[in-house]
């Protein structure tokens, strides 16, 4: 059996980074993990872009914590749909995140204190610029593919727009060309939960030795609702009451956790609040809100995508109501209009937005076929 060849590195970038907002970040670190081996002509690299709360740890087992399996381990590895026996896969923790790359928790060199509220607002396009610099450092002139789900899919799309010559295939899964008003509304509720937590201290809670946990919990609970489908929730929890074995199933007539679904959301919120940074949550949801490549083209996605050279694979899931199939079809429609190379699959899966992270034979066979074909045509 072949190996994953997991390797983790922190890479420092000393040259200042101009951001879309006009701010400039003087220097920064990015944490990456790589899997497989870069070939001699450096043409087999695949960049995996992560979504809201994920990290560089895409596949395999965290060397420091055997319980910590990569967030897309079912997709990436030896013999998996994105086969690390053939491809050199890179996971990168985005700038502004809280898993080792420079972000609000990092020390601001000018103040000697954590950036906190002073960390600049980052956009999807900024991330792509940092990832391109990373590719430069690794000597990768052109990625065989850039791939991501949800917010990760936005980064893949932005790659195809910003660096058309540096990406051969663009794999956009469960994503959207821009957030809807409803999407932004959910993000705003989540942000408001954090901003209104008394422990938030205007973003400088690190100095007070506290964490706005209540806000983070609520933010995660709201987010989580949008990741699951109605059917999925009905199946998982229905109207089951949360009761220890043997206890009466009568209503308790109280406001404590009563239904299973409440217990689940509380659990998810609690777990999240222990490992995720509140400022990062604000930054990442704002990056989602701002993403709209058509904006500088008078709202025309066709024109925004006019220069892309990458071949696209766009995938959506039937029960995803956060970024439903219609949103993916908008991307496909523009690519078709431009006569770009594109395939589109709509996977009939019950798990809502979360489906992109789960194992489903139709979905995984499709990705396997796409990367298999890519591999054969590269020879």
């Amino acid at each position, binding site marked *: 059996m072949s190996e994953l060849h997991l390797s983790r590195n922190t890479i420092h970038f000393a040259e200042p980074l101009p951001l879309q907002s006009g701010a400039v970040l003087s220097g920064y670190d990015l944490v990456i993990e790589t899997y497989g081996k870069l070939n001699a002509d450096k043409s087999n690299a695949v960049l995996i872009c992560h979504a809201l709360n994920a990290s560089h740890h895409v596949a395999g087992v965290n060397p420091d914590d055997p319980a910590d399996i990569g967030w897309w381990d079912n997709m990436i590895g030896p013999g998996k749909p994105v086969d690390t026996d053939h491809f050199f896969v890179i996971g990168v923790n985005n700038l502004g995140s809280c898993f080792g790359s420079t972000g609000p928790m990092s020390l601001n060199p000018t103040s000697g204190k954590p950036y906190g509220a002073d960390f600049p607002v980052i956009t999807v396009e900024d991330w792509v610029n940092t990832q391109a610099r990373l590719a430069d450092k690794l000597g990768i002139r052109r990625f065989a593919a850039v791939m991501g789900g949800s917010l990760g899919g936005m980064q893949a799309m932005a790659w195809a727009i910003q660096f058309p010559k540096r990406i051969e295939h663009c794999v956009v899964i469960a994503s959207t060309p821009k957030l809807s008003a409803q999407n932004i509304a959910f993000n705003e509720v989540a942000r408001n939960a954090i901003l209104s937590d008394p422990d938030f201290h205007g973003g400088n809670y690190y100095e007070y030795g506290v964490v706005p946990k209540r806000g983070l919990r609520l933010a995660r609970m709201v987010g989580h609702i949008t990741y699951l489908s109605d059917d999925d929730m009905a199946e998982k929890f229905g109207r089951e009451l949360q009761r220890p074995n043997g206890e009466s199933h009568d209503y308790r007539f109280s406001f404590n956790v009563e239904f299973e679904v409440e217990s689940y959301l509380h659990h998810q919120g609690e777990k999240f609040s222990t490992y995720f940074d509140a400022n990062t949550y604000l930054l990442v949801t704002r990056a989602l809100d701002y993403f709209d490549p058509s904006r500088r083209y008078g709202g025309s996605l066709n024109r925004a995508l006019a220069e892309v050279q990458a071949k696209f694979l766009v995938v959506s899931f039937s029960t995803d109501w956060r970024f439903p199939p219609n949103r993916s079809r908008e991307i496909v429609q523009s690519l078709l209009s431009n006569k770009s190379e*594109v395939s589109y699959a*709509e996977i009939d899966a019950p798990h809502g937005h979360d489906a992109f992270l789960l194992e489903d034979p139709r979905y995984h*066979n499709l990705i396997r076929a796409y990367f298999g074909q890519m591999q054969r045509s590269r020879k």
Partner: protein
Amino acid sequence: MVRADFAAIAKWISPNTQVLDLGCGDGSFLDYLQKQKPVHAYGVEIDDARVLSCVQKGLNVIQQNLEGGLALFENDSFDTVVLSQTLQTIHQTEKILREVVRVGKESVISFPNFGHWSHRLSVGLGHMPVSKSLPYQWYNTPNVRVLTVADFEKLASSLGLKIIDQCILHEGREVTLLPNFFGSLGLFRIRRAEF
């Protein structure tokens, strides 16, 4: 094994043109066509397994139900739209034909001819036909519309479609004598009449 109508359809498609194959199945025709001449092509298919086959062949394929129309595609955005042995599986016959000629400057429609003598004989003897061109039992056929060459010509005329060319085949050979009687597969090259 190349289907009898592939070569006949490919003849009507010029090199270096844009082609859309609706109901492209496992991509056999587009694969065949692209080996015959350079074209830029997309297929449309609803079935998961067939979409997968297309991706395995490296074809551009869009997973979509044709019953919903062709909203993803702009007017006159393809030189040729192919609807190969798919028309008979679609409920909304008039709608798809209107959509096909909206999107394609030209279109090629092929379908099994219910009017072939063996089919007529079969019905005459009291049974629904089962043949090479209609290889299903009545209870498991994917075909929801049965039509003859003459029926298609009549519908084309009532929808304002211009038939530019036609080719009626039986066992891969063109039938010129009484095609609606001796032909088992109808192929029509059409476009909008006002063109």
